[in-house]
């Protein structure tokens, strides 16, 4: 282990020390030749594996130094073959492990043979462009195995836009060390080391970036790199830094990069999972900077500055600090005057205690997931949400959230799970959801909530699915507009302490599944319009204190399984008509105080098991059953089970069990 002190001249240095595991070049690798700045040469150490042939292909552009006419270039394949290839044509070669002589291609301790490929322009010429993104003509559709282990490049005449090294072809995926001795004044270093998955040692001091405008993706997906030296030089003229260090999960420190004139910085250090500190400057010129710190799991400190006044509206600043799970504070004020999207800005920051300050958010339309799973957050920040359209999951999973200020949600259309599982909130301010089409799961699992806030809704609302379920301690729910709501699925399930529910307008509700399931304290079932209800499974299941129910209109019901099961204090079921086609499994079962059921028309297998029906009332229940074939009615554990007249039912085609 080597202890290194990070910090080079320039603003500001990182303050921590870190331990890097230095890469040690295996002693049995072939020695790389010395390459100098005056050389025009590329040298690659290539592995040849025993299990498959190794294919090499690349295209170099070699031109006469004086006339710029295309010439030829020479490739020494390292196995005794030397080839001259025309300018701008592919050089390709196949190595076979068994054919390689050990003298020229000694076996390494890792089991592969090795060759040194040397590529040079013919005399009087110079390389002007390199292209490693070629397909071997005999194997166009083959994904090439990683095989270049080390590369040295000195191409002093490659300049302008013609520098093209790394990228998605995985050509250098196994390369451990790369050295750039010399380039001309290139204008783009885009993707230079992108997808050098195994890179552990890099020296790019010889890259001339003085004319460069784009270094985007330069180190993206360098999975093994722990340290990148300060070889960028002055980058104040460079405009594009997008994805620059994206997905360098082993990177321990950031080299110094001047981004003061950046136009693009998105994904800048995303997925740098071991980085503890980062100094990042987003200038006012920057148009895109979303997801800069996303998944920087070890990040403990952020310095720098963030000016969002140049951000392109459509991209916003989404996921900026998402999943920075070690970061406890973001001590910045973000001016969001031109920002439309803040979604997931701080999502999954489990230890965030102090949220950043956001000002001028009146143009932000998307706040979705902004603080999702910020489990340490106790106070929600003040925000101008007057233009919010999407607030889905905005504070979902903020288990320690105790204070929520007033938010203007009057424009919000999507409010799904906005305060889902906010276990510590005891009260909310009132909310205006008058534009909302859904408030599904909005206050789900708010275990300590006592008073449900006054909420304003409108006919735009179509769903209150899981609105308040598992919010055990809520004592009251005020009326709100539900005229066009179609689903009450599990809306108040497990609200143990609610003793009443408003007479909501439920005329368009089709899904009542679990709507009032297990509300132990509900004394009277609300007079809801159930005429459109098709799914009423577990509708009022286990309402153990309910003593009366209205004559619900169940004319549209298709499934009434467990609908009125386990209601021990309900004595009388009024004369409700039940469609004979509606599933009625266990509809009244275990309601052991129920001594009269006037329901008419049951035509599917059903149960009044464990009720309180005497002989006469069981006979009456049989009288009201539909005529069927192959259906069963369970009547066990009723006072009249043994003495009732079962022939009333069997005469209608029923099988009676008891």
């Amino acid at each position: 282990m080597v202890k290194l002190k990070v910090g080079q001249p320039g603003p500001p240095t990182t303050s921590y020390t870190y331990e890097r595991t230095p890469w040690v070049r295996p002693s049995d690798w072939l020695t790389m030749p010395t390459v100098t700045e005056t050389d025009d040469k590329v040298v690659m150490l290539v592995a040849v594996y025993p299990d498959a042939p190794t294919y090499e292909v690349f295209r170099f552009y070699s031109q006469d130094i004086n006339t710029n006419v295309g010439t030829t270039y020479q490739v020494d394949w390292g196995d005794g073959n030397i080839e001259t290839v025309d300018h701008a044509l592919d050089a390709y070669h196949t190595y076979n492990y068994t054919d390689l002589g050990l003298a020229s291609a000694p076996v390494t301790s890792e089991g592969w043979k090795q060759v040194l490929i040397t590529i040079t322009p013919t005399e009087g010429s110079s390389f002007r462009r390199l292209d490693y993104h070629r397909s071997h003509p005999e194997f166009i559709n083959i994904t090439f195995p990683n095989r270049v282990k080390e590369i040295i490049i000195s191409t002093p005449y490659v300049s302008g836009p013609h520098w093209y090294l790394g990228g998605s072809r995985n050509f250098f995926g196994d390369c451990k060390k790369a050295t750039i001795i010399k380039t001309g004044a290139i204008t783009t270093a885009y993707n230079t080391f992108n997808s050098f998955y195994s890179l552990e040692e890099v020296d790019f001091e010889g890259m001339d970036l003085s004319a460069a405008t784009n270094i985007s993706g330069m180190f993206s997906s360098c999975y093994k790199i722990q340290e990148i030296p300060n070889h960028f030089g002055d980058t104040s003229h460079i405009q594009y830094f997008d994805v620059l260090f994206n997905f360098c999960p082993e990177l321990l420190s950031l080299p110094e990069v001047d981004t003061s004139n950046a136009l693009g910085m998105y994904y800048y250090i995303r997925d740098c999972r071991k980085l503890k500190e980062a100094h990042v400057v987003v200038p006012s010129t920057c148009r895109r900077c979303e997801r800069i710190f996303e998944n920087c799991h070890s990040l403990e400190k952020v310095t720098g500055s963030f000016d969002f006044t140049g951000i392109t509206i459509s991209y916003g600043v989404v996921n900026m600090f998402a999943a920075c799970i070690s970061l406890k504070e973001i001590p910045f004020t973000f001016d969001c005057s031109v920002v439309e999207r803040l979604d997931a800005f701080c999502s999954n920051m489990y230890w965030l205690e102090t949220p950043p300050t956001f000002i001028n958010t009146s143009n932000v339309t998307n706040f979705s997931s902004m603080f999702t799973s910020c489990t340490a957050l106790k106070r929600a920040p003040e925000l101008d949400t007057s233009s919010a359209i999407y607030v889905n999951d905005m504070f979902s999973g903020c288990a320690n959230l105790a204070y929520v200020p007033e938010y203007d949600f009057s424009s919000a259309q999507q409010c799904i799970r906005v305060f889902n599982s906010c276990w510590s909130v005891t009260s909310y301010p009132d909310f205006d959801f008058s534009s909302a089409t859904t408030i599904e799961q909005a206050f789900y699992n708010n275990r300590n909530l006592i008073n449900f806030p006054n909420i304003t809704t409108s006919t735009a609302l179509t769903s209150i699915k899981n609105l308040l379920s598992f919010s055990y301690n809520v004592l009251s729910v005020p009326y709100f507009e539900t005229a066009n709501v179609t689903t009450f699925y599990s809306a108040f399930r497990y609200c143990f302490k609610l003793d009443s529910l408003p007479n909501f307008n439920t005329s368009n509700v089709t899904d009542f599944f679990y709507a009032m399931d297990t509300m132990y304290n509900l004394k009277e079932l609300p007079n809801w319009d159930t005429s459109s209800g098709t799914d009423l499974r577990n509708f009022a299941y286990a309402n153990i204190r309910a003593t009366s129910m209205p004559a619900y209109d169940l004319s549209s019901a298709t499934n009434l399984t467990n609908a009125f099961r386990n209601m021990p204090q309900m004595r009388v079921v009024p004369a409700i008509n039940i469609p004979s086609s509606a599933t009625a499994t266990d509809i009244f079962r275990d309601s052991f105080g129920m001594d009269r059921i006037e329901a008419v028309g049951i035509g599917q297998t059903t149960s009044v098991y464990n009720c309180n029906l005497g002989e006469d009332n069981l006979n009456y229940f049989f009288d009201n059953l539909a005529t069927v074939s192959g259906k069963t009615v369970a009547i066990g554990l009723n006072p009249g089970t043994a003495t009732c007249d079962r022939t009333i039912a069997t005469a209608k085609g029923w099988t009676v069990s008891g």
Partner: protein
Amino acid sequence: MTEGFYKFDTILLWGPNFVESPTYALYKENKEDYTYPVDGWYWFESLEEAQNFFGIEPEEESEIII
């Protein structure tokens, strides 16, 4: 005690003491006399035995999903 006549028809049906249909009748006291199944009905000594026979998972309580 959960002994009784059991039948699986989408759901598990149970008659602890009797089953009467328009065409047959089963009574607990005569349970040894029948050749099972009778219209799908079997005699089992317990609910678990019936569930095992029909390959039915025991009912589980709902869990909170966060």
